[in-house]
């Protein structure tokens, strides 16, 4: 599996546009800045929805109304983050593929997506007059708290990708080599 991913990353790395994006000081930094700044839109909206569900913020507004209204700007932000994220991966494919933080981030993204799907389904199915109450029902509160934790960890992992502590060029314990996706006798990037 690691070898397959490594070969795929190597193939991406041969693309002229990948090199151009990586080598362009302004373009790369603009893409990365957009990726990070869109946090304010996407995660900003998401955190407010989650904090409302757990009864910490905006408790005077109906919870489902707040969630519905903030859904669109959140998705716009997420789309921009997703596109710029792919561009950032494309610019440095091998190192990202072999970054343990990037890999954890991807797993957490999947977990956050599943949690978002379940949260949305529970919210639609929730019965009663919970909408006007300060705290949402227990299953929605749990979903909101999980969302806060997952996205918090995603941001932390995203930030840690920049650090090279577990890069393949360093000697690591065997398990770390495997988890990072290092391939024996590979070219070091």
């Amino acid at each position, binding site marked *: 599996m690691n070898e397959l991913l490594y070969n795929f990353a190597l193939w991406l790395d041969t693309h002229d546009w990948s090199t151009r994006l990586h080598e362009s000081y302004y373009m790369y930094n603009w893409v*990365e800045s957009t990726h990070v700044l869109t*946090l*304010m*839109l996407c995660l900003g909206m998401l955190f*407010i929805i989650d*904090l409302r569900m757990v009864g910490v913020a905006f408790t*005077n*507004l109906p919870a489902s109304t707040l969630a519905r209204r903030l859904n669109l700007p959140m998705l716009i932000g997420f789309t921009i983050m997703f596109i710029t994220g792919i561009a950032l991966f494309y610019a440095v494919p091998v190192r990202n593929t072999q970054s343990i933080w990037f890999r954890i981030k991807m797993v957490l993204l999947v977990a956050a997506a599943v949690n978002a799907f379940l949260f949305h389904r529970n919210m639609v199915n929730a019965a009663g007059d919970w909408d006007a109450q300060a705290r949402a029902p227990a299953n929605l509160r749990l979903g909101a708290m999980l969302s806060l934790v997952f996205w918090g960890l995603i*941001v932390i992992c995203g930030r840690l990708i920049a650090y090279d*502590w577990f890069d393949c060029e360093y000697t690591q314990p065997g398990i770390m080599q495997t988890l990072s996706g290092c391939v024996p006798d590979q070219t070091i990037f």
Partner: protein
Amino acid sequence: MSTIAASTFSIGSYRRTIIVVLLVLGTLLFSVVPVWPVEECVGDDCLVTLRRHVWVGLYDFFLWMETTWFGVIGKTWGAAFALVEAFHLLAMALLGGSVFVADARLLGMGFKDVPPQQILDKAHKVFVWALAVALFTGIFMACGVAGKIYFLPVFWYKMLALTTGILFVFFVKRPLLRQGLENLSPLSVKLIAVSSIMVWVTVAATGRWIGFAGS
């Protein structure tokens, strides 16, 4: 009698706005007007602005920042610095969320059926908490790399934008909005919202650029 009372009220309610305008003008004068010539100067660089004088004087303070606990921890443990940096980003995300929600309501782009004051007051509470965390983590990070950021123009742009943003929120936006939207012209309300979004996006963007400029 009522005219005098109305005019006093009007000046009184804009008192903080006037103070902020004077502060901004003072900052500009501070930055561009030369205060005295450099002794034995040669060439074009003979006039020193107060800003440059203060900047040179601040170097010792920045060196001291690196010797504080925050500075030592930030410089010694890369993991601690990275973790605090991530929390700084999370705080900025929350700050951005509160700003966008409040300003979207002011621009009439959402929650039109909800009284604005309900949104604005709650958003401000979230904003204050997010700002407090962002300031705390920001100071920690600044201590860790104080000797480097001192020489980065973008760091000073960020400080200027941050100061402007804080002054704007607490001395312009909040006092004006506390009067009630019905007492403000629609144009003023929209201007407040657009200015608020612009200043906080500038704070975030200049902050991000510190990382690029310093690498």
